């Protein structure tokens, strides 16, 4: 009796662990050995129970519960395969309006164009276009595709606009990035400042020979600032300006969406997020559906026997 309950509880917990891969795909837990070991132990417990039932330890109810045990085993194997054999979570980074091929999925990811308002709202989406099949919009919640789960990973971003002292709009480039002509900074690098790891990026206004480094501070970072900052509820950047030979020309604090003038350039940095497309291995849907259906059906079947006849009659031991 105890081994039966233990098997069911372990099976349910293991199913929950595997389902968590779909419900919370951002957790890096699934590719860890601890996760795999947990599922392996669960599988071992179920197999041990099944072995006992085979020997006649748990009677007719136990035999009917083998259906549930098989279902849990299917789910566990699916979870183990995704966690151990599936590829580690990969991030596909694109700039707004670009198409990035993803050969592994036989598809291309279209990163939606984003203006300053879209970056501030952080609601840009990524659309996956496949050679065969309809386009798949990926939003904040994950979308399954085969044995992968696609989800958006919002990252700090800034939309940069710049003008000269006469108000003429200036070209913004990213000399150190593959996204040379994009005014959207992705802050892919980090700089250690005090206790903070601060994301930073660089851009330039080549017509005025100015190069800027932008350090991104979240509201949480700003709250810890010893100096008075007027608005600590929105992100902000600190801009360092230099000429194109590296001579320092100034430093200023730039709240999101506010114009600041530095080194003869009026700069507006609208801060928010822009997503990367994350691709995580996920248990195949058929394994989850089949396994959970068997698990529930097995429990239901064994319960119906108990309900119909009260305590199920154990088979008579037969002497030889």
């Amino acid at each position, binding site marked *: 009796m105890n081994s039966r309950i233990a098997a069911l509880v372990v099976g349910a917990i293991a199913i929950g662990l595997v389902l968590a891969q779909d419900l919370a795909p951002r957790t890096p837990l699934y590719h860890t050995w601890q996760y*795999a070991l947990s599922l*392996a132990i669960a599988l*071992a417990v179920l197999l041990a129970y099944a072995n006992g039932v085979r020997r006649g330890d748990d009677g007719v109810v136990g035999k009917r519960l083998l259906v549930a045990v098989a279902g849990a085993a299917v789910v566990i194997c699916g979870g183990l395969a995704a966690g151990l054999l599936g590829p580690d979570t990969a991030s*596909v*980074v694109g700039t707004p309006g670009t198409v990035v091929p993803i050969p592994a999925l036989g598809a291309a990811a279209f990163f939606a164009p984003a203006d300053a308002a879209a970056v501030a709202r952080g609601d840009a989406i990524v659309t996956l276009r496949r050679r065969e099949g309809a386009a798949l919009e990926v939003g904040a919640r994950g979308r399954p595709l085969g044995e992968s789960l696609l989800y958006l990973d919002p990252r700090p971003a800034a939309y940069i606009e710049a003008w000269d002292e006469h108000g*003429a709009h200036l070209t913004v480039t990213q000399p150190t990035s*593959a996204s*040379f*002509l994009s005014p959207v900074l992705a802050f892919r690098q980090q700089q250690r400042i005090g206790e903070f790891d601060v994301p930073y990026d660089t851009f330039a206004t080549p017509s005025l020979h100015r190069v800027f480094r932008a350090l991104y501070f979240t509201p949480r970072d700003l709250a810890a600032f010893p100096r008075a900052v007027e608005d600590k509820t929105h992100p902000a950047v600190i801009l360092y300006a230099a000429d194109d030979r590296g001579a320092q020309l100034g430093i200023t604090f730039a709240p999101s969406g506010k114009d600041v003038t530095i080194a003869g350039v009026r700069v507006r940095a609208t801060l928010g997020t822009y997503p990367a497309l994350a691709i995580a291995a996920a248990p195949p849907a058929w394994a989850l559906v089949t396994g959970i259906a068997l698990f529930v059906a097995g429990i239901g079947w064994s319960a119906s026997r108990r309900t119909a006849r009260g305590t199920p009659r154990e088979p008579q031991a037969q002497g030889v």
Partner: protein
Amino acid sequence: MRRSLVIALVVLLGGCYSAPDPKAAGSGGPSTLAGAPAQSFDLRRTDGRVDSLAAHRGQVVLMNLWATWCPPCREEMPALEGFARAYAGRVVVLSVDQGEAASVAAAFARERGVTFPILVDENQQYGRTYQGVGLPTTVIVGRDGHVVRGIDGAMTLEQMRAAVAPALAPPGPRAVSR
């Protein structure tokens, strides 16, 4: 026996564990765009009219992304003007200024005697979409609205002729099945 099986299973699964290897894909420059549908944005030209790549669907287009501050772009401009004149009626030349004010691009065009249309792309939509890794960037778009070729860097007149030649070639004879 059972214990051995469990240990063997754990060891087997542990061996399957693969260390994290995060991969990131980025933009690959304009040369990677060949065959992709050409994306289009409506922009105002220096003469005040609205124009776009899509407005020239059915024609071969040579789109040149540039800026007045870019020395190679300025050096390329005479060749581009020569090409536009030589291929008038066969290839549409669209010049798209990246990020600058219309007045700046218009003054440059007047000074250099540029006759082809200049679109003013203050938000650099074409530049980022066509994955410009520098300026100038040239994109050849076929009659079907797909990118034929993307080229990074300044081109000579001869290189421009060679670049549009595949797009201007008549379609090959279709295979006839019996």
